[in-house]
Every structure is written in C-alpha cells, then in structure tokens.
C-alpha cells in the first residue's frame, strides 16, 4: 500500500505537463514502515536521454547521487522514482522492465494531449521478470 500527499501529486502532474510531449522524470521520498510507504516529497531531475525524449527517459548517476543526498539531508528515505508516458497508458513497458531496479517504487504518469490524466505505482519483483502494481491512495 502506498500513500502520496496530494501536494506531491500536484508537483508531479505540473512537471509532466510542463515537458510534454517529452517524458519527465524525478525521485520520490518519504518513509517506509513495515512495507507501508508514504510519499511526502519529490525532486524533479532533467531527462538526460540523448535523442528520444518523447519516448525515453534517463536519469544519470550524477542526478541519482543528488537524490540520495537530498534524502540524507532531509532525513527521508529515497523510495523510488517517477516518469511520464506522453500519450500512452500508465503501464510499465518492456523497456521499463529491462531497465528497472527492484524494491524501488516506480510511479508512471499518463499525459494525454498535454494534460496529466492519471498515475499508477509499480514495484519490480526480485526475479526481475515483472512489475507488480501497488494500490495507491492520495491524501
């Protein structure tokens, strides 16, 4: 079960819409207690994918380190990352699976015609074979 503050959802949607038709990306922070995760903050980072920003995103090691540092400085846990799927469903793709990181929460925002419509949350299982959808409640 995932909880997300509505202020975080607002930030994510604004970010996703502002870079449409390109994909946005960033990190999610908060706390985890007994497998229950609560997202209270986010950090947007540049999409460093070279040539295909409309259907790919890449977060570089430099920005990953920034996220770990942000979590440390703010006393939060780095819980996962988010990205948008412009004019596409909020479902993990084969490419998402090939490049996924286990345990990390992956939030996907669907943006249709420039408007963020909905989002879903996923965690890749340890076998690296599939993403399991997580129920998410926006508070």
């Amino acid at each position, binding site marked *: 079960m995932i909880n997300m503050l509505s202020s975080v959802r607002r930030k994510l949607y604004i970010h996703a819409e502002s870079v449409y038709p390109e994909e946005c990306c960033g990190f999610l922070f908060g706390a985890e207690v007994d497998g229950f995760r609560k997202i209270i903050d986010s950090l947007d980072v540049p999409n460093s994918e070279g040539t295909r920003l409309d259907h790919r995103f890449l977060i570089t090691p430099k920005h*990953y380190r920034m996220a770990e540092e942000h979590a440390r400085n703010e006393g939060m846990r780095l819980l996962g990352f988010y990205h948008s799927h412009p004019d596409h469903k909020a479902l993990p793709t084969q490419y998402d699976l090939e490049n996924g990181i286990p345990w990390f929460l992956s939030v996907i925002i669907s943006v249709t015609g420039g408007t963020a419509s909905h989002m879903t949350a996923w965690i890749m299982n340890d076998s690296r074979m599939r993403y399991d959808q997580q129920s998410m409640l926006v508070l």
Partner: protein
Amino acid sequence: MEVKFLIPTPFRKHTGNSDTVIVHGQTVEEALISLTEKYSPLYRHLFSDDGTLRGFINVYINDNDIRYLEQGRTGLKDADVISIIPSIAGGIDVRLPDLSQEEILRYSRHVIMPEVGMEGQKKLKAASVLVIGAGGLGSPVCLYLAAAGIGKLGIVDFDVVDVTNLQRQILHSTENIGRSKLDSARERISEINPHVETKAFNTMLTSKNAMDILCDFDVIIDGTDNFATRYLVNDACVLLGKPNVYGSIFRFEGQVSLFDAKRGPCYRCLYPSPPPPGLVPSCAEGGVLGVLPGIIGTLQALEAMKLITGQGESLAGRLVLFDALALTFRELKLKKNPNCPVCGEHPSIRELIDYEEFCGVQSHQAGSAQKPAGRDNKTEITPKELKERLDRGEDIAILDVREPVEHEICSIGGKLIPLGSLRQRMNELDPEHELVVYCKTGRRSGQAAELLRKAGFKQVENLVGGITAWAADIDPKMARY
C-alpha cells in the same frame, strides 16, 4: 586492500539495510566478487546472465567512474570508497517503421546478425543523422550510412566540388567538378540507396542557424575542417543534448571519439581552447593522405550505427588516435571536466557565441571588408600590383614561407624559408629592404609578415591570396595544388 562499498537505497534490502559494506580485494572486480559472495542476492541485480555488469549499474572509486579508469581491473588502495550508482531509464515502446520485402533483402546481411536483427534495422530506418561537411570525412560517412539504411541523412555544406577534393572525397566524381557538393552528394546517395531521405542545407553552419539545423536530427557527425566550426558543433550539441561523433584528420594521423555531454566529456573537456590561429595547418596547407579520411570517416559511421542500434561499447570517454604510417590505433581515456564552460557543473556558455572570434580568426565578411585596395596600408599587395612593379624593375625582395615540397610544385621565385624556421633564419634577410612574403593562400605569409614587422623589418607586404591567386590572375599555366 580493505575498501568500503556505498550501497544505494534499493539494494540495501540485500545488505541487511546497511548503507556501507567493508570488503577486501586488490581490484574492483575482486571487491565486487567479495561483495556478492557476502550478499548473494545482490549478484543478479548487479550482473547480467553473461557475467558482465548490468548496463545501468555504474561503479565509482572515490568519485571516479571506473569506465574512465581500467574498469574491473582498476587497482584498489586501502580505504578506497566504492560507490554503486544506478542510472534509471525507461520509456514507451514506440512502434518502429516496417521494412518492405525489398528492404529486408537489401539489408539481409545486417538482419541475420542477432546484434542488429529486424529491430536494429528498423531503428536505423527510424533514425536521422546530420553530417556536417560533405568532404573527406563526410564522404565515407554518407556512403556507408546511406548503404546501411539510415532513414534520413542531413548534409550541411556550401562548397563546390574542386579537382583537389577528388583525391579523398569519394562522394564526388570528376564529372561533378564545379558543381555543388550537395547536389553531387544527393545524387550519389540516391544511386546507392533510394530508400534514404536526404535533406540538404546549402549554407555555412553559423551560430545563427546551427540550433535550427541540428535540432531535427538524432545524431550529429562532425566532418568539419576548421576549429571555429568544430567548437560551434560541439556547443550546439551540448546545448541541444545531441551526441556528436567527432573525427579529425591531418597528414597521416586521425582522431575519432563520441562526445555526448550527458554521459561523458565534450570536445571542450578535451580541448578547452583552440590553438593559436595558424599553429595547426589545415589539410589544404599540410596535406592529407587520401585514404585517411576514409578510415576515420568509416569509424564515425560505425560509431553512429552503434549508437542508433544500441550495440557495442561506445566511444564516449575514449579518444582513438590512428597513425597510418605506423598502422597503430591508440586509445586515450577522456574525463568530463567539471569546470567545462559548456557542459560542466556551472556552465558559463548557455547560448552559441562568435566562434570565429573565439578561435581568433577573421570572419569572411570582416576579412573581405578589411582587405586593402592596393597598398594603402602597406601591409598587403595584390598579385597584379606585384607583377606590375616587378615588370617596372622595382627592387623588391620576395620570400616564400611554404614548405620545400610546395616550392617544388610551383614558385614565383625569391628565397625559401618555411614559416616554422623563419624565427631562427630571419638574419638571412635584410630588414631595411622592401619584402613581399607569399605562401599558398596568404594565411601563413600573413603570420610571417606580422612576425617580421615585429622583429623590426621596415616594409613587409603579404601577397593577397598567395600563389593560388598569382596562378589565377597572372600565370594560368602555373601548376596548382
């Protein structure tokens, strides 16, 4: 050696929630083995089935990426800190263009290799590549990328085919002399592969048009022959986030690399500032072995294809140096400069600048505007005026600052002192005597004239346009090169 691993958050589940792990090892490889022996579930997240590190796993030793060191073989010291840092990627599975029956047959030698396959060939068809310069490097790049089935090839050039190009620029043929290089290139490309869409930009690449031209292409290939355009291409690629496949050639040596500032160094990280004008001669002045751009350009085409198909080990962070006479390839590791003015952490260049000024060269417009009419400022002389004065029997000393091999091809007389040895041999000249200096085009002699004036020579004039202009205006029978 006892070293410390910093474990990223998503992997801490496998290290008992610990963010650091102490292990022993002489090399990075040994330390990683030791880590995964200690925490075995980590193995499949760090390594692929073939035992290599997964593509999104980055390993740093004390802030240095091991890709720019000796990778797994990098030696360790006591108390080194090894960070495991994931890159995170993802995205939509886009529909690639279909291949017709004819295309599958045409590209069958690609398609039957699993590393390319149908998907790789479709990626090539979906890709667009911009080649800057349809000359020595651009020729093999265009020919091979067209043959390979790149969907869209853009070419930037404003020149016409000259007979001196044909020794190396295999895109053009004898019958195309005097014709636009772009027309010649388009015709040849469509002969090789009618499936390729070509987009021609008949212009000099400038700070004003570069962003608009480059932005529509996936990969940029630098086939330029001057520093101003090379810095312009680099900066535009960094600002647009485009990969820049770099190549350069001179005489018997060539260089090739991939500058992709999002993942590694850019051209400015390697060469922060250009050499002083005139220090590095152009191919027109210094010569180039015809086959050399064939080798370097082909490597650029290869690198672009690897980038598009996502195969192989990219040249990002590596500079390959080729020596044709020794027949050796050497490789230098390149590091991103955190203080790089364009791709560093605090960039000062956020838009394109004046690259001719940056490289200390006069622009075409400025150059022609400043050209004196006759000898008004006594620093230059036209071939016509020199001929008239010599015919009148005026006492003018003439100095050729080209190389002896050039002097052998053609000469208008006078003493030969190559520019490189002028400083040492200046005492062979009379500083009180009027002196006209010439080279092939007027560039080297311009520097020589400046050097002589600074050394106290009373009256030194540079022959405008060099012996090339002399041959055109005064002596059409003279051998040209």
